[in-house]
């Protein structure tokens, strides 16, 4: 075993994680479309192996404060592009989440997908490839490459295997995302030109991080990046693609969308915006926080009115990702908010992913997403009821489940940064309970009147196989988040250092009430001085 660990420690882990799915996809292209069984299992095992390998990232036991497992090869020296990847505490868990959810979503599709399986599994593997790449790229050029590479597979996934207005949804998804990303490309080129003007033409994140652009430039770049990421997240006014895409996509598609694609936005913010444009981020913080709070409240309220099972969960992501945004931009003299946001991204991935899988389970049996069509399932599908209950509670943010850890930290940080917005956001916790529990009630409680539902089968082994791990993860993160936070904290501190220095200088936290500040002056030893420590 140790030998294996050693071997893996030296191997280019990240590259393997990224390219294994791609290789798998290519191999599948050579298979005959008729042999669906082989294709399914092959895809599944490829993803499982990838996951297994990705676990070795942890084996080294090193701290993830700085980028580890870094690989850098010059690619296009003429234009200063290099294949530069690495993982730190922030991206680590997102990468693992990706490699975990890939097999899960593949497994969840076995019986759900009945046409053109070959293409389907190829595309899923491609998604895994692109997503993993996005989270580890340390070269803006490379990052953009992976970022865009996600679009087409998802477009086809929604378009071909989706339901209802799938073509509309797919097109909307691509166009909407493209709008953001091309502006980001412009900003990336701008950064490149700026680097060039310093006599070092490069897209390299590490270099750019140590040579920040002047504030007025930052503002423009920030806006461009902001648009791209805000659409992905999605932040309040840019969220309408989400409902359609998530709703019409096939189950696995929704899972990947909610669990990972949205994270690309949050990750982008914390990795690039905060690091490369600290001044801009700080001055934008109040606005972004405001938008985040609007997303939280608005998303929750809109959810409450949904009659479509999947659409409701989709929109709930707006609210939940609002929390993440709030955390990322809550600049105080502590990094609690950002740490919370980072862990919350993982949580949301697990929880919402599981929710979509659960919806998929009944959708596959009943082929309807109308909440009204269900009711009284608790009696018919007890296992399903329990799993759903736990997942939903995690999503509501019940303590001792993963959702709470993230939301608590985020709100703690946000409250420090701006007590008013923090307080408002806290109210989102109440709303989450309202819409989720109401939905839960409609679906599971009451007499099971509809004969269709009476003969519904409970979860089978395969379904349990991909749901239980997620549930365990919810409990683990909820009860003992230490390992996760332990890896995240140093990396986040290290990431937000510069932002914090600026933020604590500026007004953005004096707003937590002069009174409190005054008191803080007197109270101490216990004055919290986190973040930049």
């Amino acid at each position: 075993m140790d030998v294996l660990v050693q071997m893996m420690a030296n191997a280019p882990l990240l590259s393997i994680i990224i390219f294994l799915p791609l290789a798998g996809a290519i191999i599948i292209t050579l298979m005959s479309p008729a042999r669906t069984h082989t294709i399914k299992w092959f895809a599944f095992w490829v993803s499982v192996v990838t996951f297994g390998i990705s676990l070795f990232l942890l084996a080294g036991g090193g701290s993830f404060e700085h980028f580890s497992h870094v690989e850098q090869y010059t690619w296009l020296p003429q234009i200063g592009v290099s294949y530069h990847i690495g993982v730190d505490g922030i991206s680590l868990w997102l990468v693992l989440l990706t490699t975990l959810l890939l097999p899960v979503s593949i497994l969840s599709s076995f019986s759900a997908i009945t046409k053109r399986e070959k293409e389907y599994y190829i595309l899923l593997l491609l998604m895994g490839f692109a997503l993993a790449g996005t989270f580890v790229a340390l070269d803006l050029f490379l990052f953009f490459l992976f970022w865009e590479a996600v679009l087409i597979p998802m477009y086809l996934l929604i378009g071909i295997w989706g339901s209802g207005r799938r073509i509309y949804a797919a097109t909307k998804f691509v166009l909407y995302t493209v709008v953001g990303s091309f502006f980001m490309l412009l900003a990336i080129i701008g950064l490149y030109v700026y680097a060039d003007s310093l006599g070092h033409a490069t897209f390299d994140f590490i270099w750019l991080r140590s040579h920040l652009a002047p504030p007025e430039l930052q503002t423009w770049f920030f806006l461009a990046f902001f648009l791209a990421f805000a659409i992905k997240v999605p932040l309040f006014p840019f969220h309408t693609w989400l409902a359609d895409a998530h709703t019409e996509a096939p189950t696995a598609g929704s899972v990947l969308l909610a669990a990972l694609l949205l994270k690309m936005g949050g990750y982008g913010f914390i990795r690039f915006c905060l690091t490369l444009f600290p001044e801009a981020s700080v001055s934008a913080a109040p606005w972004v926080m405001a938008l985040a709070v609007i997303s939280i409240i608005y998303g929750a309220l809109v959810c409450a009115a949904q009659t479509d099972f999947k659409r409701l969960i989709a929109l709930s992501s707006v609210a939940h990702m609002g929390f993440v945004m709030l955390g990322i931009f809550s600049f105080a003299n502590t990094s609690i908010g950002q740490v919370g946001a980072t862990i919350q991204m993982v949580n949301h991935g697990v929880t919402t992913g599981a929710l979509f899988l659960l919806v998929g389970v009944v959708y596959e049996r009943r082929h309807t997403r109308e909440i009204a069509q269900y009711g009284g399932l608790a009696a018919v599908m007890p296992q399903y009821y329990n799993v759903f209950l736990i997942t939903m509670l995690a999503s509501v943010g019940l303590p001792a489940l993963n959702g709470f850890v993230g939301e608590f930290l985020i709100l703690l940080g946000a409250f420090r940064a701006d007590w008013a917005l923090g307080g408002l956001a806290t109210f989102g916790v109440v709303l989450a309970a309202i819409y989720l529990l109401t939905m839960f009630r409609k679906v599971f409680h009451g007499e099971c009147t509809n004969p269709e539902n009476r003969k519904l089968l409970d979860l089978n082994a395969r379904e349990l196989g991909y749901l239980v791990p997620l549930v365990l993860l919810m409990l683990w993160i909820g009860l003992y988040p230490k390992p996760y936070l332990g890896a995240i904290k140093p990396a986040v501190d290290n990431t937000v250092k510069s932002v914090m220095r600026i933020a604590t200088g500026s007004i953005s936290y004096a707003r937590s009430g002069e009174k409190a500040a005054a008191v803080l002056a007197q109270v101490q030893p216990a004055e919290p001085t986190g973040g930049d420590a």
Partner: protein
Amino acid sequence: MGVSFAAGKVSALLPMGVIVLAALLLVLLDVLWRGRANRRLAAMGAVAVIVAGIAQLVYFPRIPAQVFSGALKFDGFAAIVAFAVLAILLLTLILSPAHVARMGLRGGEYYALLFLSASGMMLLPAARGLVSIIICIELVSLPLYVLAGYNRRLAFSREAGFKYFLLGAFASAFMIYGAAFIWGTTGTLWLSGIAESLPSPENRALLLLGLGLLLVGFGFKTALAPFHAWVPDVYEGSPTPVTAFMAAGVKLAVFAVFLRVLMEGMMPLAEFWRLGLYVLAVITMCLGNLLALHQMSLKRLLAYSSITHAGYLVLGLVAANAEAISAVLFYLLAYGAAVIGSLALVAAWAVRGTDDVYISDLRGAAERQPMAALALTLFMLSLIGFPITAGFIGKVLLFYAAYKAGYIALLIIAIINTMVSVYYYLRVVQAMYILPQEERAKPAEPAKSGGDAGGALSPVAWPYLTVVLVSAVVVLVLGLVPRSLLVWLSIYSF
């Protein structure tokens, strides 16, 4: 330079010499073989192209070679363009025989004309005086007028040839008239000379008039709005291989020389023509995109897309900095590869009696011909400028050049247009992958819903397939590992 008729290093002329000879030879052979030797002619032509390529390689002008007292100056830049032209010609040759046969045309002049036009393209980037430039452009265009209308059985083709010719001649008249004024005000037609002997600022009106008229000509050849109107009609009407040849070749050659004219001859006047081109670029991009949105015919769609791309390329001209040269050239190559590939598929799938494919015909292609569908998708992505394709690198380089020159506003317009363009390129992908056979993609508009045969796509024959594969490879290679090309471009710019 002066007036001395020093022949200079004629060896540099060898490649296009080969091509011209080949052209004449092909005519003769055609007569000998009584016009029943379509394939053989093509083969012969291919051989000639390869020979020319070798010659080009052997006499690669590491140090620029002057010919005819500097009327032609061969340098690396010209050589790279020449190579590209040869490649395009070769691909066209591979496409042609099968297509010519399918359309029931005679081989002979067809190939000869192709070769003549190609020789003009090879000369263009080397041309150093307005006269030689204009002559070369004519040399490129005249054969194409004929080729456009070559498919005489089809009204479309006849009409295309007719329109192309009438408007082309019209435009070149402007060009020549412009040249007259430039010469009159500067006393020289050598690009280098013009830059040196500009009249004093106050009496530049005539010079600018001349420049303006000259730009009209270039605008026409490069399909800038409002001189673009012929493009869709001609592209749609011409025999598909010819369309490919035009789209890739003419754009390449003319843009190359356009770049030279502006940057070697007119740089001191930059402040003037930048404004003009700026406006043209905006109109071109927007118009091209908007008109492309609702096209039913894939060929016509590509025509409009070529207009749009011309608009993007003007960014490089406006920027007119060192970066722009290699950027524009790279972009042209990337575009050429993608457009030839897609047109090869159009030719391969051409519905009976139309020499064209409607987007609605593409339905179900992904399932029937996955590889071809994949390739077409790749080309579409490259045209959008999606990562891992040549188009992406091209766009990045181009935008970089423009950004560096400080044309942010223009860039933003370009970017917005790129977003819009995603929609219609995706329509093609959508038709192939998503839309099932039975249901309609968009309500096919009455005028052009002709070929809605519902995905009766003929399998792709090997010549088409070869071209498709080659262009696909090029698109990918230029997208992933364009190292060496970038190196050459950086060395052999001017």
